[in-house]
C-alpha cells in the first residue's frame, strides 16, 4: 500500500474502502476490526450462488485524529454496490457500540478533561442501501444503525462522508442525513429512490431515468451543498476529506450539531418550510431550485470548478 502522505493526494472517488479508512485518520493509527483475515463472510450469499467477500463489503476499525479515537465505517462499492446485508450491518452497528462504550470509559478515566478526548464516528458511505440477496436482514440492520445514531446524540459526533462511485442511496439515504454533519465532494451523490422507479411512477416525460446529467444535478454534491443537506463540499481527495473531518473534531459538540438538517422539532419545522416552497413552485430541475435560492447563473453551476462554485454559490437561507 502506498504511503499515507501520497494517499492524501489521491482521488477519494477512485479509492477503495480500505484506502479511505486507513487514510482518513492520522498516519499509522488505523486498526481494522474484523478484517478480511477473520473471514467473517455472509452466510446467505452462497445459498444464492453468489461469491462472498472476506470483509462483506465494509471496512470497520478505529484510528485517531489528534487526541481522539475515531471509529471508522467505510463501505466498498465494488462488492455488490456496497449494499448492506447481515454481516455488513452488524459491523456497522458494533462500531457505533464500541464508540459509545469508549465514550463511557474515557469519561470515567478523564473526568475533568474528557471533552477533548471524546470519540467520533466517521462513515464513508458507498452503498445502494439494502442488499437484496439478504434483504430482510439488511433492512433490520438499517433500523439498528438509525437507532445507534440517535443513541450517540448529545455525546459523540457522527460524521458522514459521501464522495465515492456508488454514492449513497436507498435506506442509507436516510442514515446519511441523520448524521450530525455531512461532508461531500462534487462527485458524491445522495438520494433515496432509484431513477428507474421514479420514471415508472412519474412517466418518462416528467422524469427520464436515462438522463444522467439531470440525475447528477438532483443527487450531486453541489445540489446537496446548496440545500445544506451537505454541510461542507470539499475537493475530491482523501486529504481534503481528512482535513475537513479534523476541522470538525476541533469544533465544540454544539457547533458540530448546528450542521444537522434533521433531528429536532425546530429542524423539522425548517424542513417543512422547504416542502411548502416545493409545493408552491413547479420546479422541473435542480437548476430551478438553485435559481430560486438566488443563483443567477444557475445553468452554469454544473460546469463550475470547485473554487468558483464555493465562492459564488448561494445556499438556502437558514431559519
Amino acid at each position, binding site marked *: 500500500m502506498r504511503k499515507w502522505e501520497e494517499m492524501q493526494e489521491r482521488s477519494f472517488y477512485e479509492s477503495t474502502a480500505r484506502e479511505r479508512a486507513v487514510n482518513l485518520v492520522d498516519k499509522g493509527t488505523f486498526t481494522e476490526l474484523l478484517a478480511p483475515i477473520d473471514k467473517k463472510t455472509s452466510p446467505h450469499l452462497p445459498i444464492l450462488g453468489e461469491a462472498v467477500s472476506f470483509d462483506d463489503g465494509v471496512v470497520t476499525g478505529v484510528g485517531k485524529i489528534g487526541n481522539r479515537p475515531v471509529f471508522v465505517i467505510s463501505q466498498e462499492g465494488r462488492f455488490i454496490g456496497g449494499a448492506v446485508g447481515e454481516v455488513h450491518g452488524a459491523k456497522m*452497528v458494533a462500531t457505533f457500540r464500541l464508540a459509545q462504550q469508549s465514550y463511557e470509559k474515557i469519561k470515567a478515566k478523564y473526568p475533568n478533561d474528557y471533552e477533548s478526548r471524546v470519540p467520533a464516528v466517521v462513515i464513508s458511505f458507498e452503498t445502494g442501501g439494502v442488499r437484496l440477496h439478504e*434483504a430482510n436482514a439488511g433492512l433490520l440492520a438499517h433500523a439498528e444503525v438509525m437507532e445507534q445514531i*440517535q443513541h450517540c446524540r448529545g455525546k459523540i459526533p457522527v460524521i458522514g462522508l459521501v464522495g465515492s462511485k456508488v454514492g449513497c442511496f436507498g435506506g442509507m439515504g436516510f442514515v446519511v442525513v*441523520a448524521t450530525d454533519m455531512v461532508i461531500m465532494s462534487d462527485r458524491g451523490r445522495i438520494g433515496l429512490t432509484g431513477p428507474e422507479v421514479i420514471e415508472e411512477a412519474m412517466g418518462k416525460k416528467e*422524469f427520464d431515468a436515462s438522463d444522467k446529467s439531470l440525475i447528477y444535478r438532483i443527487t450531486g454534491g453541489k445540489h446537496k451543498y446548496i440545500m445544506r443537506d451537505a454541510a461542507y463540499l470539499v475537493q475530491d481527495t482523501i486529504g481534503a476529506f481528512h482535513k475537513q473531518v479534523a476541522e470538525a473534531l476541533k469544533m465544540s459538540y454544539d457547533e458540530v450539531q448546528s450542521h444537522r438538517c434533521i433531528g429536532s422539532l425546530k429542524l*423539522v419545522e425548517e424542513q417543512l418550510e422547504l*416542502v411548502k416552497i416545493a409545493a408552491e413552485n413547479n420546479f422541473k430541475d435542480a437548476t430551478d431550485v438553485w435559481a430560486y435560492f438566488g443563483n443567477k447563473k444557475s445553468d452554469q453551476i454544473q460546469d463550475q470548478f470547485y473554487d468558483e462554485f464555493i465562492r459564488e454559490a448561494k445556499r438556502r437561507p437558514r431559519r
Partner: protein
Amino acid sequence: MGMTMLGKGRKAISMILDEGSFVEGKIDGYTLPDIGPGAVIGTGSLKGRKVTVIANDAMVRNPRFPVVYSGVIGMEEAYKMATTVYKMIELDKNKPQGEKRPLVLIVDTPGNGPGKVEELFGMNKATGAYQLSLAEARQHGHPIVAMIIGRAISGAFLCHGLQADHILSLSEEFQTMIHVMPLAGISRITKRDIESLTELSKTNPVFASGAGFFYKLGGLEELVHNVDDMKDTIDRHITEVYKCNAEGNSEKCGPWGRGILGKERGGRETRDEVIRMMYDEFAKVEAQYI
C-alpha cells in the same frame, strides 16, 4: 378466511381504540398542520389509556404531491409524523418515565414518495426525521407499538414501524405484505430465475417476503391471527414495554432487541457473532486508543 385490512387504516383505528375516542389532528391541545393527508394522526384511548396514533390513509391522494397516494408516505406526511412525535415528547416532558403516553403505529404503506421533487427537496430527510423522532421518543420512555395491518414495504416500513419497541403483524391470511422487494424484483436484480428463488424462499427467511419470515428473523414480536385480537394484543405489548423500561431493559425492545430476538429464533445468528468478535478484537487494542 379472505378477510383483509389492506387500505383500511381508518377502520383499524376505530377497531383498536375505545369507541368514539379518536380525535383526529390533535395531540392534546396542539393542532397538527393541515398537510399530509396520507397520514391519519390523532389522540384516543385504548382500554382507557391515552395514546397517540399514527396511521396511513390509503384512500386519499396528496393534492400537492402527485406521487403520494395509496398509503405512500410523502414529505408532508413524514414531517407531520415527526412533528407529532416531537410534540408528544414535549407535552409529556415533565411526566415520570412510566407515565409517558404510548404511541401506536398502524402500518399499511407501500413506500416513500418516488418523485423528482421528492429527490430535489429530500424525501430521505423527511422519513429520516421521522425515524430519529421515534428513536428519541423511545429514549424518553414512550412505548411504541407498531401494528401491521397491510403493507409494510422497504423504506416505508423502515420509517413507519421498524423503530418501534414492539412490532405486531396480522398473519399472512390477511394478505399482509412485508418485504423489501417482491421475488420478481429480486429475481431481476440478482439474476436468479424466479422458480429457483421461489423454491429457496420456502426455507430461507432472509430474502423471502412475508410476516412469517420476518417473525423468524426477529423482525416481529408477535403475529396476530384474528383482527378482533388487535386491540388486546397491542394493549398487552404496551404494558410489556412499560415493564421492560421500568426494569432498565429498554434495549430488549426496539431494533437492538429484535437483533437479540433474531438469534433466539435462529433466523439471524451471524449478527451476534460479528458483534462479539468486534468487541473482542477492540479489547486487545483498546489501550492504544483510550
